[in-house]
């Protein structure tokens, strides 16, 4: 069985990961569509879909809510009666953070946390917090909703590690002695207005405050104190998230392009996933230029001279792109072995409507193929 088809069958969570600008969102939406039509109900959770994709999914006006895609829409795209339902949602990071606090923080701390300046930067601007909340949301959807398959389109991370690290990072922090060491005296004294000397009038604390300003430490300590009743919950969910990522029923689909400037990033991603013992179903190489059939050159020769030159220039360019892509594909295959590669051709126009998603799915499922060109000499 084709690796993508197998992953859809055996997984209940699929994460589409990879460098920016390679078509992760499209692949995620395609997998969810295919799964639903074939009989396994799905939810695709996208981060920042193209407007036209959002429109064709009917998501244009929606925020965090899960929306069911109408069956006739699925049927129109695939030409067959869908055997299960497809849902789609957009993830609003700030909203997700606020929801988390509203649901999990004790009543008397909620407002204090939501108004804390550290919280505001945590939920909107802090690097890594997007990745973290995306993982939280995934976990919540998995635990609380009955979707047979959830496909997560991951945020455009600057670094592969940020995303995979997110749960670990929170755990690291909560589990580590520094937090306890900073907070314990205050917690023991039941003090809310934490004084810096409570943080340990230590040399270390003084030195850090020289760096960040005394009040910063103080404010941060207050923030952590408010959050402290949520620590256990964070810890628990971070463990759950980690377990979810490692579960047998979770697969990663690494999406890449064939162009050389994205290759290193994709290979690095692949290595990182492997080192973290995560299951990679396949590397999807998106937007591959198929080779130019030899016969076309002969055909071009029969054209009037002036037009022939321009047609040949186009053939040359296409040939060039195809052999360049073939080189990229060969390199990916070598560096990501034994993970299977699945090639999706570059379509004439950007893929935004559901019918093109359906066509894409044929390549993902191995029902249609492109043979890469012979790698460039």
């Amino acid at each position, binding site marked *: 069985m084709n690796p993508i088809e197998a992953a859809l069958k055996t997984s209940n969570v699929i994460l589409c990961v990879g460098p920016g600008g390679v078509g992760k969102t499209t692949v995620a939406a395609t997998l969810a569509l295919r799964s639903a039509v074939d009989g396994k109900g799905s939810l695709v959770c996208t981060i920042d879909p193209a407007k036209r994709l959002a429109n064709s999914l009917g998501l244009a006006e929606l925020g965090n809510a899960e929306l069911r895609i109408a069956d006739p829409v699925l049927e129109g795209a695939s030409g067959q009666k869908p055997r299960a339902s497809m849902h789609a949602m957009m993830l609003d990071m700030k909203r997700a953070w606020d929801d988390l606090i509203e649901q999990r923080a004790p009543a008397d701390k909620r407002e204090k946390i939501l108004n804390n300046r550290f919280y505001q930067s945590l939920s909107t601007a802090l690097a890594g917090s997007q990745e973290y909340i995306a993982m939280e949301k995934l976990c919540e959807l998995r635990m609380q909703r009955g979707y047979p398959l959830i496909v997560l389109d991951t945020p455009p991370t600057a670094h592969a590690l940020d995303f995979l690290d997110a749960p670990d990072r929170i755990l690291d922090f909560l589990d580590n002695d520094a937090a306890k060491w900073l907070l314990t005296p205050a917690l023991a004294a039941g003090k809310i207005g934490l004084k810096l000397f409570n943080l340990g009038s230590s040399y270390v604390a003084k030195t850090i405050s020289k760096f960040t300003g005394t009040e910063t430490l103080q404010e941060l300590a207050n923030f952590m104190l408010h959050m402290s009743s949520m620590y256990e919950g964070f810890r628990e969910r971070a463990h759950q998230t980690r377990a979810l990522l490692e579960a047998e029923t979770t697969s990663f689909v690494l999406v890449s392009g064939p*162009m050389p400037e994205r290759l290193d990033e994709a290979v690095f991603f692949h290595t990182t996933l492997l080192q973290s013992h995560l299951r990679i179903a396949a590397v999807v190489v998106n937007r591959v230029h198929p080779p130019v059939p030899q016969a076309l050159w002969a055909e071009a020769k029969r054209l009037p001279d002036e037009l022939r030159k321009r047609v040949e220039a186009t053939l040359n360019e296409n040939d060039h792109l195809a052999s360049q892509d073939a080189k990229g594909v060969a390199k990916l295959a070598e560096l990501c072995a034994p993970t299977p590669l699945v090639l999706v051709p570059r379509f004439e126009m950007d893929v935004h409507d559901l019918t093109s998603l359906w066509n894409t799915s044929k390549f993902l499922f191995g029902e249609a193929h492109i043979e890469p060109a012979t790698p460039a000499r």
Partner: protein
Amino acid sequence: MLISAFERVKVAEAAVHSVLLDKRLIIVTGKGGVGKTTIATAIALASARAGQRTLVCEVNARERISGLLGRPETGAEITSLEENLWAVDVKPHEAMREYALMILKFESIYNAVFENRLVRYFLRFVPSLQEVVILGKILFHLKEKRPDGSWRFDRIVIDAPSTGHAITFFSVPKVILDTVPPGALANDAKWMRELLIDPAVTAAVLVSLPEEMPINETIELAAALKDRVKIRPQAVVLNGFIPSRFTEGDLEQLPPGELHDLAAAHQARAKLSVSAAERLRALGYPLLIVPRLFTPTFGRAAIEEVAGHLGKS
């Protein structure tokens, strides 16, 4: 008609070249995959060629610039690539160390405190500290002078993170000013912000591709930079432009089949390129056009060609 639109744009290039190269800090950003690193490298190369001492910075990335120019990796140390051109891949850990040492003065204290495992965890939680030390290092070099009083670097080009991360990254001084009470950190955030929002010093270059998503993102990014981050976009680069090649008549002349489809596909992309240029030009910033390159390997030669297109006069 399509061709003439392309020609018009080229005329604008010369003007843009001179506008770009009178700023000391050039921030290159855009959607992932649009060619930010290529454009940043080309701008840096053009700047160095113009006799300006130029530093090009990658930000905690997988280092690519040195490789594109056919040089060994520089790592986190500022390294000379060729005459007037230096490169560095700024990493948070090293930047933090340099920054802390500047404040603490004593390496032994730094080692005792900042290399402490527990403290490192703690610092990781201080909002945006990582970004601020990276930005701080870059902007420190912008202010740095040589013994004779001239700038150590006449110009710094930042190969910045992609859209969302760039907005976060360059907002960091403001976030710190809003969150962090007065102290060493807030003081540093203040001068950093002043440099970033000074239109006489800093210019953003937004890179885009003739495709829907990158164009949409460029338009949003331009607004966000200008209104929220207060960094002035100075120019937009449309990378991967496909010039028109066939007329309607040509396409009719080609018999139905793959050859016709290839020519039609080329023309469709050319049309997309023109409408992309129009949408981007409507932003009101000078538009630089870099045609799609068909080179066997993307290395120094390609960068030189891109630099040529950017600097055409």
